[in-house]
């Protein structure tokens, strides 16, 4: 799956996007895979929301290989 990073998370990961090969996973599985590759994301987990294909993920959302996933840190538009 394609994973997008925004705002300060780009500095944490060193990139704006990456490809993650972790099959179909729930949010916990996705975070496990992300933290394995980017341990620096750990402090942000509690404040970051997940989005799947441009919609906020719900508690039952599953993330598959063809999905576009985004890590959404607290927003500050307007």
């Amino acid at each position, binding site marked *: 799956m394609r994973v997008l990073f925004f705002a300060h998370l780009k500095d944490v990961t060193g990139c704006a996007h990456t490809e993650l090969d972790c099959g179909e996973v729930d949010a916990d599985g996705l975070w496990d895979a992300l933290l394995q590759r980017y341990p620096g994301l750990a402090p942000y987990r509690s404040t970051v929301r997940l989005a799947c294909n441009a*919609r906020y993920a719900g508690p039952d959302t599953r993330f598959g290989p063809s999905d576009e996933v985004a890590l959404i840190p607290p*927003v500050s538009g*307007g």
Partner: protein
Amino acid sequence: MITQVTLTTQRLEELPGPPATAGPVGAQVEFLGIVRSEENGRPIAALEYEAYQPMAECEIERLLNELGSAHPCHTVQVLHRLGIVPVGEAAIIVRVLAAHRQEAFSLLARFMDRLKQDVPIWKCKAWTREELARRFHPGPFRPS
């Protein structure tokens, strides 16, 4: 409800407003969110915004549809600027056309609250005059 959502690097002040509507519209409310000269107590020359644009546009539309059920309005235009926005220029313009002012004010106030909670747009950097001058020298941008 007619909605028009635009995220752009263009100056918002130069973009056209919603089309004039005769008949049902008795109130037009306009809000401009303008970049201040200070951010977290530090003088700045500009703010830089970024967005997850497809999702931001969908979220704004979703919010407007949700709020429009409780606060029926005729037309809502949302313009949000991305990239570097100099002090004194608008980062966001929202125009609401409705039959009466109450609905327009209510929708506008609630929309701005929700935008700041849910729409994936970020102030990603506050630029000082010196930083801007270094970045754009000898380019055309000259912070005032």
